[in-house]
């Protein structure tokens, strides 16, 4: 029987980053298992944006530390292709006095931890994105170090860097069960083999709940379909991501030239559905034509869907489990697992290797949901 130090379930960005950090810190026998291939789940379906403008302290810190990693990822991971990282900012539109008040609070929080965000008037926002419809919003916030990175290539960069450090990857292999004896992890059973291990990391994205169930752990997350569309590529007309929570849109031109945009469906039910709908296309087109009429002239070439793994407070669960020794989880990112991946890998590796955690990281433990305790709720989510 195969005996290893750690089994990571899921070869999305969180699992790949965790494997990389563990290997870099000296752990030797690490296996990443995925029932499909790298980025086959939520990572490969995400909107590719990376931002630091959040409404909770934990999310702000996670985002800031992740951006700092992305800034050096190309060199640190010695990746040969271009990661398509760009920092041209996120412009977040407000459409009411209440929202503006909320944003003022957010910017204050962001600044307090060193995120260079600021509030903008309509005129200032138009200087940043001239083709905005000035009648579609009342004020905005902007952070120039937010941006974009290619999710496929970023994942591949972690994958190849992990491979060089000796991480093993098992693709097209499905974890069927997690073996627990006396509240301790003992192994993992897949459709191809039985692996002996004392450490399991649940980085299963949309299937995090199921991978919790396998070990008898109830993780309070569910999956929800979020749709996206992409246009034909065109000349560069927009630097920053334009986003509005109240209008329900995010829209960015990626370095490749196409525009990516998405919105949430308020009627979506918890499920693993990732299909495309005509309703999304209707609503998305109307919203983008209202805010960014110029973008409306472009042709949509493709739509798709992917799972948000939603937690009760829209903050991730990056955690061990106090009643199950050896079980770790990185899930419930509520749509933002890609942009928080570097710090996820760092934090899970710190937990496994018993390094001292910073205070903000302790707050991401799953035990925060015990006894219906009130937690800091993230509202800045599309």
């Amino acid at each position, binding site marked *: 029987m195969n005996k290893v130090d750690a089994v990571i379930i899921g070869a999305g960005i969180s699992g790949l980053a965790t494997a990389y950090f563990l290997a870099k810190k000296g752990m030797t026998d690490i296996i990443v298992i995925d029932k499909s291939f790298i980025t086959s789940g939520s990572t490969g379906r995400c909107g590719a944006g990376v931002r630091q403008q959040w409404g909770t302290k934990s999310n702000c810190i996670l985002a800031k530390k992740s951006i700092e990693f992305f800034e050096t990822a190309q060199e640190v991971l010695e990746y040969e292709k271009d990661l398509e990282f760009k920092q041209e900012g996120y412009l977040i539109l407000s459409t009411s006095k209440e929202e503006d008040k909320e944003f003022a609070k957010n910017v204050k929080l962001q600044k307090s931890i060193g995120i260079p965000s600021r509030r903008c008037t309509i005129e200032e926002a138009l200087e940043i994105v001239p083709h905005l419809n000035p009648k579609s919003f009342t004020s905005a916030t902007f952070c120039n170090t937010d941006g974009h990175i290619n999710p496929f290539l970023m994942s*591949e960069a972690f994958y190849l860097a992990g491979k060089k450090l000796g991480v093993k990857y098992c693709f097209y292999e499905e974890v069927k069960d997690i073996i627990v004896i006396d509240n301790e992890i003992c192994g993992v059973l897949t459709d191809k083999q039985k692996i002996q291990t004392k450490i399991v990391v649940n980085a299963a994205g949309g299937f995090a709940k199921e991978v919790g169930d396998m070990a008898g752990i109830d993780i309070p997350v569910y999956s929800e379909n979020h749709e996206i569309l992409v246009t034909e590529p065109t000349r560069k007309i927009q630097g920053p991501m334009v986003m509005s929570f109240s209008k329900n849109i995010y829209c960015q031109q990626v370095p490749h030239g196409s525009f990516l945009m998405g919105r949430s469906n308020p009627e979506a039910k918890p499920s693993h559905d990732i299909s495309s709908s005509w309703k999304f296309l209707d609503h998305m087109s109307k919203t983008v034509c209202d805010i960014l009429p110029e973008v409306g*002239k472009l042709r949509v*070439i493709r739509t798709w869907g992917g799972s948000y793994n939603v937690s009760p407070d829209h903050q991730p669960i990056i955690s061990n489990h106090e009643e199950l020794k050896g079980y770790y989880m990185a899930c419930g990112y509520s749509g933002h697992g890609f942009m928080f991946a570097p710090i996820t890998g760092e934090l899970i590796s710190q937990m496994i290797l018993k390094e001292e955690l910073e205070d903000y990281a302790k707050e991401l433990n799953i035990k925060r949901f015990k006894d219906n305790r009130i937690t800091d709720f993230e509202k800045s989510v599309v």
Partner: protein
Amino acid sequence: MNKKDIIICRCEDISLADIHKCLEDGYTTFEELKRILRVGMGPCQGQTCSILIRREIANYFDKKVEDVVVHKTRPLIAGVKLKDIADQADE
């Protein structure tokens, strides 16, 4: 003819050499190639490259073309301007 000069995906300018490099790197399916190279995601949505790439995968792994899984197709069938959709949207 040089493999770098044989264009397989016209939307994204992907050559036969790019496809072979990906297969040599260990990727095995159209879906994997799609994510790394963007093949099948351009304006033609794979209508040009799909069969060519499946044939290359089949040759590389010594399989029959019909045994190579077709990539996932998504709407739309052809490009449509966002404004035209918005103008005729329901509700």
